[in-house]
């Protein structure tokens, strides 16, 4: 293919960032429109990509490969498959919308928007890279703009939040680096993910780390790196802080895309490359998922800061993703056919990643809307806003109900798939974690009541209704939430072949057949 669409996806935002650097600093409008233009183009490209994507193809498509550093066998390699394409769409869409969410940024817009575009490029790169080294580079590169975006445009505790985020994630990623190198050397010096998937499952067998099985250690190192991003308990405490302090658009990206990278990384790397480790750890993963679900929900229930509540809800929701992923070990017959539970869980996990991306984006944008008007986020400090701003209240209701997993909205089906997938393997855990959906409902409804219902707080008698720009950022998401809630097939069709392949790769592990 002569038109390297994936490279365009990755480098277009970079080009945008560079373009912005040449715009005079006082022309804020031009800067914003340039940013919107480039991300818009990116969205169009993802649509083209989606249209041309072959759903039945096992393996990667639109591959691009170029030699980069031959001496270390590093190459520039991009590709997309059913696992990454939902994430690519999500990234492009959220980046585009977030430009409009950030429209009101008036402090150094030039820096803000160029950093934002770089962030976009980094995220794209992570989802598209097929060379492990390239993957890591994008993974880390993304941290820099994120650090600045939180630290320079964030809330009162922004400096603390920025460095904490940076330290936390760097901690995870350096451990990952070690694991990457261990894989590299034990698999005959290659960073090529496609080759690693073939070689690694057997190559790691001989590795030993001070008597521990090397593959377990490598698995764990990778896992910690990804778990911090997800975040999985107990690596989660950066999240509430960073989400709360970041500007709205950055919170959206953090929750909408960054968290997905952790799960994506596990699915892309841990699962197929080290199936033995995956099987070994799956039970623990399910337990961690349970903790995430319950712990996140309980913490969300106790919050008085609206944004923090939403942040904790992300922890809670990512727990479902983990639960679905833990189902991968369900081999044999369930649901009436072979490894169906595993596929249900895995598809559910990826679907939940996408759906959580759209839902949480809505949640954060909505929190931003009210914060822009009232300049506080104390849940108890509102009251009765529904009578003053019915449209806003309605959209919030939609997002809130999507968040609590109402059927007909997209969150439900993916959560249900995760539960159903994990259920045959982890009955008790799943049963306990269904409590999470009760707690979900509790904190969402309780907060909704405190903010929107009851008598109107006189302070907000002149509250402005949500405006057109804000609605513009929300409507595409809302449409996705409803569409996928009613008919998830388009998304599932895209990813199911890949997920089946990953399940297959994991289930070759001999550990599974012992039981």
């Amino acid at each position, binding site marked *: 293919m002569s038109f390297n669409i994936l490279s365009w996806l990755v480098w277009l935002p970079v080009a945008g960032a560079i373009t912005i650097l040449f715009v005079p600093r006082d022309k804020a409008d031009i800067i914003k429109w340039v940013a919107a233009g480039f991300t818009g183009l990116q969205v169009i490209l993802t649509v083209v990509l989606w249209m041309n994507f072959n759903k039945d193809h096992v393996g990667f498509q639109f591959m691009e490969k170029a030699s980069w550093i031959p001496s270390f066998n590093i190459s520039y390699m991009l590709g997309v498959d059913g696992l990454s394409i939902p994430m690519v769409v999500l990234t492009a869409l959220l980046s585009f919308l977030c430009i409009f969410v950030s429209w009101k940024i008036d402090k150094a817009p030039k820096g803000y928007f160029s950093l934002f575009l770089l962030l976009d490029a980094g995220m794209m790169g992570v989802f598209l890279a097929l060379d492990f080294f390239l993957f890591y580079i994008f993974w880390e590169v993304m941290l820099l703009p994120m650090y600045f975006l939180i630290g320079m445009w964030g809330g009162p505790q922004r*400096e*603390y939040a920025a*460095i904490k985020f940076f330290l936390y994630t760097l901690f995870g990623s350096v451990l990952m680096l070690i694991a990457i190198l261990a894989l590299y050397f034990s698999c005959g010096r290659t960073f090529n993910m496609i080759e690693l998937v073939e070689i690694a499952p057997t190559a790691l067998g001989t590795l030993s780390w001070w008597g521990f099985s090397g593959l377990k250690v490598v698995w764990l190192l990778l896992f910690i790196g990804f778990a911090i991003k997800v975040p999985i308990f*107990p690596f989660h*405490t950066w999240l*509430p*802080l960073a989400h709360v302090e970041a500007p709205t658009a950055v919170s959206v990206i953090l929750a909408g895309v960054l968290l997905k990278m952790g799960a994506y990384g596990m699915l892309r790397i841990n699962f197929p490359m080290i199936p033995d480790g995956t099987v070994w750890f799956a039970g623990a993963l399910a337990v961690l998922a349970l903790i995430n679900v319950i*712990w996140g929900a*309980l*913490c969300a*229930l*106790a*919050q008085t800061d609206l944004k923090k509540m939403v942040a904790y809800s992300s922890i809670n929701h990512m727990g479902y993703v983990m639960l679905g992923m833990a189902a991968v070990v369900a081999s044999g017959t*369930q*649901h*009436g*056919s*072979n*490894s*169906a539970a595993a*596929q*249900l869980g895995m*598809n559910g996990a990826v679907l939940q990643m996408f759906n959580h991306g759209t839902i949480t984006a809505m949640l954060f944008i909505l929190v931003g809307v009210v914060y822009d008007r009232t300049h506080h986020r104390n849940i108890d400090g509102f009251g*009765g806003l*529904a*009578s003053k701003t*019915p449209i806003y209240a*309605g959209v919030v209701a939609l997002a809130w*109900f999507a968040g609590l997993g*109402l*059927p*007909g909205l997209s969150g*439900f089906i993916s959560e*249900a798939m995760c*539960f*159903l997938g994990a*259920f*045959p393997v982890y009955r008790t855990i*799943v*049963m306990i974690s*269904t*409590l999470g*959906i*009760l707690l979900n*409902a*509790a904190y969402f*409804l309780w907060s909704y*009541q405190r903010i929107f*219902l*009851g*008598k109107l707080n006189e302070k907000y008698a002149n509250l402005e209704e949500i405006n057109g720009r804000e609605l513009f950022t929300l409507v595409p998401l809302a449409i996705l939430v409803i569409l996928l809630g009613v*008919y*998830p*097939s388009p998304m*599932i*069709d895209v990813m*199911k*072949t890949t*997920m*089946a392949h990953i399940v297959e790769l994991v289930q070759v592990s001999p550990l599974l057949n012992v039981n």
Partner: protein
Amino acid sequence: MINYGIAILLLPLAAFVTQIFVGKRLPRNGDWVSIGAVTITFCLSLAMFGVMLVKYDPDFVIDEAWQWFDLGSLTVHLGILIDNVTVVMLLVVSLVSTLVHVYSTSYMEGDPRYSRYFAFLSLFTFSMNGIVLANNLLGIYMFWELVGLSSYLLIGFWFEKNSASDAAKKAFLVNRVGDIGMFIGIMLFFTSTGSFLFSDVFAGVESGLFSTEILTIAGLCLFAGAIGKSAQFPLHVWLPDAMEGPTPVSALIHAATMVAAGVYFSFRLFPIFTPTALIVIAYIGGFTAIFASIIAVTQNDIKKVLAYSTVSQLGYMILAVGAGAYTYGLFHLVTHAAFKAGLFLCSGSVIHAMHHAYHELHDHESDPQDMRNMGGMKDKMRTTYLTMLICTVALAGVPFTSGFLSKDAVLAGTLSLTMHHPEHFLLVVFGFGAALLTAFYMFRLVFMTFYGEPTRREVYDHIHESPSPMTAPLVTLATLSFFLFFTLPNLNPFSDHGWFTTLIQAKDSVVPGHLNPTAHEIAEGMHHAHTPAMILSILIAFGGIGLAILMYLQKKISADDMAARLALPYKLSLNKFFVDETYQRYLINPSLAFSKVVAFLDWELYDKYVINGLGKVTEWFSRVVGIRWDYNVLDQQIVDGVGRSTRFFGAGLKFVQTGKVQNYLVWVLVGVIMIYVFQAVS
């Protein structure tokens, strides 16, 4: 037929969407959109009903499923099931819905969110039809939650009232508790059968995929959903609170249709319930029936009485399912839908009138729903009074009414069960006891409202009969409370034989191993219990009515005296057995407190001390180093809050760097020795 089904499902949805987006801009705020949609729905249902009557085939069924999504190894189907039960349910739903829509045009007139109200009603109709039409567990679950949503929206319709928003939240959450059980049940069935379709699940059960224990658990888990939705003990607490919603909503959702969904669901699932599960179901139903009716006796809020009455009647239906007379449970559902909706609409009419009266008197303090503020209204509100009386008679189970037929059948089923299993005699006590109390409290309600002297004359003077959009539905529903409509083509008022019992016949349990009696055996048993049950129930109904007459019409017995004499039961009943308080105290408050504790652990302890502080040990270490070798400890303790412990650790090492070159040299030598020692050890 299937097209009719789809149209019935989608029309209200279309109305909902239209109303939400453009409702306010339409003439009359677009109420005609919703009414039109629901009326067409009703017509379609009626047409289906006609077809059904023409076919007159008990085994009539259309079951069609479409692929929802496909995972390769697993395909999930959703679809529509239309059989006689569906048709009857659709008719009930669309009829009551249509009437309530019409009624609401008047009742809700002038409300600022008029169009939104109709949108929500349409949403509800859509969801309820969905439950009825679904041919699979997941579909039912989804619409189950959606009716929950519409219920939430409608209960909290007047959200400015805190009590309304509280009630809405409570309804949703309590239902979710049941739904969790239901979801677990669905998972249990799905795990073995790989399908959500009833047909597949039943086939799976029949082929012995499940052990009896699992089946019992799975069945009860599914039933948990019904407990929540049909407000059975112990999840009944949301329904009385749900009366905060507009009264037509109470009639539609919280009396006739949605709350009956649990019964409908249990009805559908009856073939897979094991004997153990059925007994549990029966006890839950029976207990709820008596429990709620005891509470209803002492309530003074007209809607609360009706609400507890609904809970109690739902208990009856569940009891019928548990007792095996599950077709009669459905029968009671249908008859009850008519007269209970009628009762609610009547009470709405009364409240409406009271409200206007108070409004005209500029009295914003008094409660228009409190029966103690009413009295003697039969003369002012003729239509309302008469229709309400008819519905009350039906509910009390007096012959010639539909309620008599269905209630009698339920009691017969219970009696039959007890005759076969005398150890479950309590069920009979529950059943007949509840019947007695029902007759009593319903007439108490009628007498307190319509008879006697008005409490305040000036209020009485301002009472007017409600307008015709409100009274017309009342008349319709009251009419439907006569036995005739359910026994055709037979005309025997004492026998339930008719089109209903012919078309809707019990099916055999699919639980393997012949653990449950067959449908025929159950019918047989009921046949024997029928006559004693009928006699007993007639006596009991009149007994209850008589007691009410004595106490509230003729005042021969003082209600206050009774209350004083039965202080403890009275107190329990008045306070609804303190169930809400118990939950608040032992479940909700501890949960909230626990969440606070967790959040504290997470943020104030874990994050602050474990993550931010790399541990007291390092701090201690740095202090030891600092005091031992540095003279300027204090100088160094300028610690800014960030990265505190790392800095602390760093500070400890900084003390060593004293700037004295010879001190450094000592350290060099110490280092040399240490290295030596290290190598000697290793």
